Every structure is written in C-alpha cells, then in structure tokens.
C-alpha cells in the first residue's frame, strides 16, 4: 500500500486472527511465562502492560535511586517490552492510572483510615484487571485475557457455569484474591499457570530464554514503593490535603482502661502484637479498632478468637446465591487455612459466616472466601 521503501524497516504488523489472546504483562516471570506458553501453543499473542501508578508522585516516599524490581516501575515496563520483543509479539503500555487510583488506591487508604485492613489486590483484580483491561483486550480484537494468576477456570457443562478453582500448586494459590469475578469475566479469562508449580514456571521461562527468567518475585503492594503502608497513607493523605496529625488517640483494654497512646488508627490491624508502644506483662493483641472514637482496643490472645462474622459485597461465583445455609470451608485471609463453616446468605449482598471452631483475628476489610474442595463458591468483605 505505502509505496516508499522507507517503511520497510517498520515492525511487522500482527495479523489479527481468530483466537488472538491478550496477556496482562507485569514484567514479572509469571505473566511473561504465560505469554511464552500461549505462543508455544500456537496462539497469537498481544501483550498489555498497565501503567497504574506514577512512582514519582509522592516524592517523599522515594528512596535513593529509581524504584527497582517493583510493579508499576519503569523497569517492569521495560522488562515486559523486552519479553515481547524476545518472543516477537506486539506489546502496548496502557494507562489505567485514573481507574487504579479511584478503585484501588483511594479505597485502600480510606479503609485503613476507617480502621480496616484492606486487600488492594482483590480490588485491582475485580475492578481494574478484569474490568477495563479485559474490556480493552476485547476492544482491540482479543477473544480473551490471560494473566499470570495461580488459579484455574473450568467450564462445568452440567450446570452451564464457569467455575473458579484453586491452583494445582497450593503454595502459590491466588484464588483468595479472585472471588469477585463474575461469570462474564471468567468466561473471557485464562489462567494458564493454574496447573503448574512455580518451579515449572521458572523452568519454562528459562527454556524460553526469557530475559526475566531469574527475576526475583515482588512481594510488596505495587503502589507502595517502600513497602511501608503507614508512610504511604500519610503521604497520600497529605497530598489530598488531609492532615493525620490530629489523629492521635488512646489504646485501651476491654474495660476501657487507657494503656497508652497511638498516632492514628491506620497504624493498626486486628491481631497485631508488635508496635503497640508499651510493654505489658502478658502479650497483648489488637482486638478492635474504633475510628470514630480514635480508640484501639487490645486484649489477650483468647479474646481474639471469634466464631461468627458478617460479610458484605458478596459475590457468588455461579451468579446466584445458594437457596439455603451452605456448608463450606471459609478462608479469612490469604495465609489462613480454610476452616469449616456454615454460610447463611442474608440478602443478595451480605451473608453470615459461622465457623465450627473459633478463628483467630477475623479482620474487617479482609475477605472471607468460601470453598468446596478446590472450587471457589464465592466470597465477601468482612465487616
């Protein structure tokens, strides 16, 4: 079409073909391995890397030198590009900073200030990755969006539903962060690593000579470059013109006796022992947080155990709530071992979880996720 020879050096365009799959690439080894795996299976791949947060935005959080080996950093974008270049498929950086701030960062900070302990990754999955990013993948002609999550998606033809399952590798399982997905989202998503172990993924990355094959895993929240949430919450609040200077309050025991003072409820999470700022005879733990009165209640370990909690914002993976009380295993934090419980749906969006045995530190802001064996039935936010 273009006649001039100078266009000969432009990169080849991807043939838009049936079965084009978009890969959400963070620049890490997992999502890079997904791209390699799909390509080996003969799929046409397009890489999308989300620009989520400007790491230079809160300059006081900058350490010396550029932020390295963390999601959202420029290094990660370059790594994703390098993988795409190595495997020779088209790759684009897409800007979701606005959505990320509105749906992940601001709620995260607000939750902490309300005395809760939020999970940013779940919001990011439900409201960014499998929402605007998935839509963009579809808009640019991809049938599905593949990610590096360790979890499995299965079509159950008997009930004509998509099912979400734990990863085969239980130590890497991320299904706890994916309970918010709808049938529509599941039907358009692929988790190719769900059947693999981390070691197999590394081996795959090495065999494919991926430039990120030896890259260390990122453990921190991607938008908190220092890993220090408290510092981030303070800096972000300052940027919004909210001073947390007047947030000091008291630490009390269950009888209301004042044991000490604190610098703001966002410094605490339920079950926390360290950092209370005073010494006591027996180990004391944060039992509850009252942001209204600016009080942190502490007590001994046995008081921390509770049998019942309520959840809100409930999502049932099959799409409809169960007709009666449901016997299932419920998991109340990522590293919690799912425990037997009965779940009573109170209405479409709330439910009561009653454990057979008391559970330690049921924490508002975290999620309770319901399992039947490997199958994720649904979940909700603990209130």
């Amino acid at each position: 079409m273009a006649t001039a020879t100078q266009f000969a050096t432009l990169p080849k365009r991807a043939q838009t073909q049936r079965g084009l799959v978009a890969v959400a690439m963070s620049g890490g080894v997992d999502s890079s391995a997904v791209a390699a795996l799909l390509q080996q299976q003969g799929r046409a791949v397009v890489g999308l890397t989300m620009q989520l947060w400007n790491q230079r935005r809160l300059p006081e959080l900058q350490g010396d030198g550029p932020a390295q080996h963390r999601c959202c950093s420029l290094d990660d974008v370059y790594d994703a590009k390098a993988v795409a270049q190595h495997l020779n498929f088209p790759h684009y950086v897409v800007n979701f900073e606005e959505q990320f701030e509105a749906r992940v960062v601001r709620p995260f900070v607000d939750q902490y200030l309300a005395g809760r302990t939020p999970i940013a990754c779940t919001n990011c999955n439900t409201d960014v990755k499998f929402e605007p990013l998935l839509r963009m993948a579809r808009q640019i002609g991809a049938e599905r969006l593949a990610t590096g999550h360790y979890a499995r998606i299965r079509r159950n033809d008997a009930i004509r539903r998509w099912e979400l399952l734990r990863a085969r590798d239980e130590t890497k399982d991320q299904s706890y962060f994916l309970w918010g997905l709808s049938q529509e989202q599941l039907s358009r998503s692929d988790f190719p690593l769900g059947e693999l172990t981390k070691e197999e993924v590394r081996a795959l990355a090495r065999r494919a000579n991926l430039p990120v094959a030896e890259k260390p895993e990122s453990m921190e929240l991607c938008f908190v470059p220092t890993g220090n949430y408290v510092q981030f919450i303070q800096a972000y609040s300052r940027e919004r013109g909210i001073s947390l200077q007047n947030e000091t309050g008291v630490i009390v025991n269950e009888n209301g006796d004042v044991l000490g003072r604190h610098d703001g409820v966002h410094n605490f999470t339920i079950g926390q022992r360290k950092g209370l700022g005073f010494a006591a005879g027996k180990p004391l733990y944060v039992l509850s947080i009252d942001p209204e009165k600016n009080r942190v209640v502490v007590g001994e370990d046995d008081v921390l155990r509770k049998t019942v909690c309520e959840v809100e914002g409930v999502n049932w993976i099959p799409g409809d709530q169960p007709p009666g009380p449901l016997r299932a295993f419920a998991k109340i934090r990522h590293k919690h071992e799912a425990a037997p419980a009965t779940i009573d749906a109170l209405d479409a969006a709330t439910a009561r979880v009653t454990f057979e045995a008391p559970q330690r530190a049921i924490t508002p802001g975290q999620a309770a996720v319901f399992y039947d064996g490997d199958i994720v039935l649904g979940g909700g936010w603990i209130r």
Partner: protein
Amino acid sequence: MDSHMDRVYLDFNATTPVEPEVFDAMRPFFSAEFANAASIHTPGQRARAAVETAREQVATLIGARPQEIVFTSGGTESDNHAIFGIVGPAFLPVSSSGDANSPQLVTTAIEHEAVLNACQALEKQGARVTYLPTDREGLIDLEELRRAIRPETVLITIMHANNELGAVQPLEEIGRIAKEADVYFHTDAVQSAGKIPIDVNTLRVDLLSLSGHKFYAPKGIGALYVRGGTRLRQLLYGGHHQRGFRPGTENVAGIVGLGKAAEIARKTLAEDARRISALRDKLQQGLLQRVLHSRVNGGAAPRTPNTTNLVFPGVEGEALLIALDLKGLACSTGAACSSGAVEPSHVLTAIGLPPEEARASLRFSLGRHTTSADIDFALNVVPAAVTQLRELSPTYGKMAEAR
C-alpha cells in the same frame, strides 16, 4: 504477506522518514569527509563549506540570513535555548516567590512540553508566566495577548502550528504586537517548518525553533533562528563554534541533511501542501461520513495541510490506537509518557474538550509519501474499529440514546 505492503503510517507529525536525497547528501560526511568543521586544514575547510551551505539552505527556507541560524540538536534544545537564553537565571530575583517586578513570559496553554516545561522551570525560579487560553479551534485571542503584556514582560513564546490540531496561530499579528511592546518574540515552528511558508521578517519573530526530523531530515538535528541583535545568552560553554552561541563540534552530516531537507521543502512546499491537504480533506470527510457522531477538533482554524484531529465519542482513543495498529494503521493520540502509556492531551483539554472526549480523539498526520490508497485503507479500517469498540463500550449505548 510482505509487512511494508499493508502497513500505513499516518503519524508524520511524530516524525518523518529521511528522504533518500537527504540521506545521499549526508552519506559522504560520515566517513569520507569526516573532518571537523572547526579545523584549519583543507578537509576541515571542506566540512566547513558543507555546513555553511546548509546554513544558507535553512536560512532561505525561512527568509533569514545565514548568520542568524544556529544549529542545535533539535526542537527541544532550540526551545530551551530561546527561553532560557532570554530569561536567564541572571535576570531572576533571588526569591522564588515571583513578586511584581519578576520578569514575565507570555505563552499559550497548548504549547509543546519543550516550551511548557521550560516555562514552568522558570516559574519555580521566580519568573511569572501567563498561559493564554485558546478558543475551541485552538487559536489565541489577540486582545488577550495585548492585555497580558506588562512592563516586566521579557518574552512572548507562541507556537506557530500546533502538533495535535495543526492550528496555525496568527503570528504576523502577534509579531506586530510584540514589536509595538518592544518584547522579544519566539515561536516554536517545529510543526510548521517545511509544511507552510515561513518568513521571519513578515512574521516579525526574533527567535524561531525548527526540527529536522519533522521534515525529512534525520533526528538529532535542528536549528534556532536568532534575529541579528537579539541579546541571547548561551546555554552551553565550550569552544567558539557557531559564534559561541552553541559550542560543541558540529554534527556535519546532520547539518548537511537538515540543509538538504530545507532545500527540498522550499521547492516542493506549495505542491506538497496542495496534494496533501486534498488527501487530508478526503480522509476527514470520509471519516465524518462513515463514523456516526464523529467531529473534527479545531477544524475551522487555519491548519497545517497534513493534520486532522477527530473525536469519536464513546471510544477510548488508547484502545482505538492499539486496535488500528494491530490492523496495520499507525496514528496517534495525545502524548506518550515515559512508559509509553497515553496521557490525557493538555491541548484538547485546553480547547475545551471534556476529558472523555479528549480521550476519544485521534490524530492523523499525513506526509509527502502518503498515497490515495493509504487514505482508502484508513477509511476502511477506522470505521470498522470504532464500531467494534463502541459495541463493547459501557458508555456509548447510553450516549447514543441520549442524543
């Protein structure tokens, strides 16, 4: 299928290919004629002669005298040199508060980042800057310019043609106003040089930036026109190259390329403009007809002949750009940040577009080698891609109903 047979490039405002004739002119100066143009010996004199020929060629393109041309590394350096060279730190007060006696600059809200960020840097050092708004077509109001000028005003810097819209400012009138007020006048002509006629005397500019790679010379070479008698500080210190304005061994091959490209542009400008604007109009009309609810941004202003910017309500420009690239059409939206992600365009926001429409806009910029078949290809793939995006858009359905 051969890759270059089906890829169409409509992003010539981002950059242009080096014209084969330009490359041919440059070639000897990489190895055979490698001498330093500042050397006294014969090979050096030959390099010097080539540089001076190029200086004449560039001067001729804009109606300047050769000694008024300073070669630079490109548009960004030229803009920075003009701005910091006039409003240097020496003029600035010690306090950074910007009091009433601080030097003042007048510019516009739709300048390129090379100008905007230079102005912002000066603001931090205590200068005051007035950012003139524009109307919906991207044009400033001359009365507002007049009102913005104060006794402390030391520089007016207003771009000639806008990179995103193609809108051409009334430089002749601006030049007259600057002259009456006895204020230096700089223009960023990076997007107009080689596309529309420029005469520095008609326009009454004191400083003018241009960039080679926007008109078929290589990247990394540009020029700053400095009217004789202008008190411009040097930014770099070194040897006596280029009358001390811009020390550093001259990029002889690049300079020769810039000169050649300027010569070609001067000869072909009128014919190119006629042909390219006809193709641009065909593209614009075709898209307006084929894409429901589409509109031209800044279509009523005088524009560079190669540029059109359209809004396709209900789509994300970023997704549209990627979808089109995957189909083989290269165009542009807004400005890219360092990661390569799209940032909202300050230009489209400045002309009054709501954010969702700024995000739904795409720029097509044609070039000397754009063919009618390229336009047909675009008219084929763009409407189809917009339809596909709108089908999956959460907002378009509601929006279309509301109309």
